[in-house]
């Protein structure tokens, strides 16, 4: 492995050529804001060419946490793929599982009962809040507000307690199954969620009171990292970045799936498209998610929490003792898993960072032939050089913070 390092690194990174900067400067400094750096939210390497404090050119180089998840998924049965897919974008794990389940359900033409859909929406929105809380914690840490790290992590723990209560674990709970949800929510879940919602409304006021009238925060975020809307659309950027630039594209409103149409919530849209708008759009999204969870809890329908089709869903444990069919179904599912008829499907979900689509190719066996996840951070990362060229290095770090890339999803 060491000889690979003797090759001078610069020659291998041919893409950073000086032509793009015009005349030759002896003061140009090409450095790596590299894989190990406090401000890159993971192992993202930004090969930046600086002239003094001005960023002249940026080349994101990724792949440092590439785990070959899509290749591993091809070796697992369908219901074993969910833990792999959840670990791609490790801050919004429910959204990965949701996209995969939607894709497989559309292949199976499986109808998910209403209660399962509403439970899924509750967990998706709680996960959006938890993801935005972590973004506001580390994002403001990059800009200098250390208090936000303690506040953000403190409130995020409340949300993770809810996941632990319903799914059994704080992270990657594998709560979503193909065809519904693995377990109904325990009795105390509803009160804890309502208490969480009440505290979160006041906590969001606290964040805004700390940040929104803070002169340093306003000067660092207002007017920095502006990218014209047309460039964003051409670069395929979706999510809060696009909405902050004034384009109200939200998959939950445009192409609602799994019951989003019967909740009323508004889509926050920015005007200028700078970092301050991105900050306000995400904070407002947290409030809207709270409203959605509140409405979902009020109108949670009764009924089964997973599809009754025993070919796909495991039968309940107590039935195994009595009925022979349940035993056979259970045995068939556990050993070989359910078979999906040959075909392809692409399902997209609005994750906290943008459109998260999952493409599944089924070849009739019980293992997917190909699972590809279109990760929003991977596509949004292409907008980073547009934000940074010609601005100060400090604003560049703010842009990375407000872009909120999750490197697990970028590198898959």
């Amino acid at each position, binding site marked *: 492995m060491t000889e690979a390092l003797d090759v001078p690194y610069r020659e291998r990174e041919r893409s950073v050529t000086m032509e793009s900067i015009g005349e030759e400067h002896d003061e140009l400094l090409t450095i790596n804001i590299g894989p190990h750096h406090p401000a890159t939210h993971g192992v993202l390497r930004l090969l930046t060419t600086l002239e003094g404090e001005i960023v002249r050119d940026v080349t994101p180089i990724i792949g440092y946490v590439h785990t070959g998840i*899509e290749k591993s998924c091809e070796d697992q049965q369908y219901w074993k793929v969910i833990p792999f897919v959840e670990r791609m974008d490790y801050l919004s794990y429910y959204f990965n599982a949701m996209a995969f389940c939607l894709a497989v359900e559309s292949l199976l033409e499986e109808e998910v009962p209403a209660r399962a859909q509403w439970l899924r929406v509750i967990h998706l929105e709680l996960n959006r809040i938890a993801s935005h809380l972590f973004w506001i914690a580390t994002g403001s840490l990059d800009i200098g507000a250390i208090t936000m790290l303690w506040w953000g992590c403190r409130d995020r723990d409340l949300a993770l307690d809810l996941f632990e209560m319903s799914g059994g674990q704080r992270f990657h709970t594998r709560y979503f199954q193909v065809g519904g949800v693995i377990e109904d929510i325990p009795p105390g879940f509803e009160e804890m969620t309502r208490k969480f919602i009440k505290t979160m409304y006041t906590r969001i006021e606290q964040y805004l009171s700390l940040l929104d009238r803070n002169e340093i925060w306003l000067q660092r975020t207002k007017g920095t990292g502006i990218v014209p809307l047309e460039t964003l659309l051409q670069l395929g950027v979706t999510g809060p970045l696009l909405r902050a630039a004034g384009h109200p594209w939200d998959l939950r409103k445009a192409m609602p799936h799994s019951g989003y149409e019967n909740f009323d919530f508004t889509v926050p849209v920015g005007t200028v498209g700078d970092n301050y708008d991105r900050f306000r759009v995400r904070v407002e999204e947290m409030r809207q998610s709270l409203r959605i969870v509140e409405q979902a809890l009020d109108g949670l329908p009764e009924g089964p929490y997973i599809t009754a089709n025993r070919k796909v869903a495991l039968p309940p444990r107590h039935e195994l003792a009595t009925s022979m069919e349940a035993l056979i179904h259970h045995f068939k599912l556990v050993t070989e898993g359910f078979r999906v008829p040959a075909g392809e499907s692409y399902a997209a979900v609005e994750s906290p960072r943008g459109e998260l689509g999952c493409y599944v190719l089924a070849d009739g066996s019980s293992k997917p032939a190909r699972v*590809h996840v*279109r990760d929003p951070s991977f596509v949004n990362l292409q907008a980073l050089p547009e934000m940074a060229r010609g601005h100060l290095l400090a604003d560049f770090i703010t842009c990375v913070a407000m872009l909120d890339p999750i490197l697990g999803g970028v590198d898959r």
Partner: protein
Amino acid sequence: MPDATGLELIAQRVRESVGDDSVTDTIFYRGRATLDVAPQSVHDVIAYLRDDDQEPWDRLMSLHGVDYLPAEPRLGVHYELLSMERADRFNVRTRVGVEDPRLPTVVDVHPTANFQEREVYDMFGVVFEGHPDLRRILMPEDYEGYPQRRDFPMGGEPVIYTFNEPKLPRWYD
């Protein structure tokens, strides 16, 4: 999602404007419209669908590669198109053989394809002609082989469970 007839209409329009042999097949399955396109005319079809068609598909959401190993033109490349006005999705697919996987790039039509084409090149070995900076994006620069092809070994280590491993080393080979 354009239904079966809508798909045929689109295919018809594409054949007229881009070329008769450009569209090889149209598949409508489980509510998903897929247009199979000949490899060399991908760029023209996508440009046509974006600009001159009466129902424009102006956004490219995802570009990903697939390895249909048993089927003959093995490597497939999918273009997930999205129209934000009509909130509708459409899929264009091309099939390329393994011997010379060449495809014209669509970066000039949709700049978002830059990273995604590099990933398809890195994982499947499909060369996109005209791509501004075609290099490996996920694997190390000097990595040989295209990991996500189905004939590429999974790698990793065999997990040893047995207690008599010292007596019968690597019995599973």
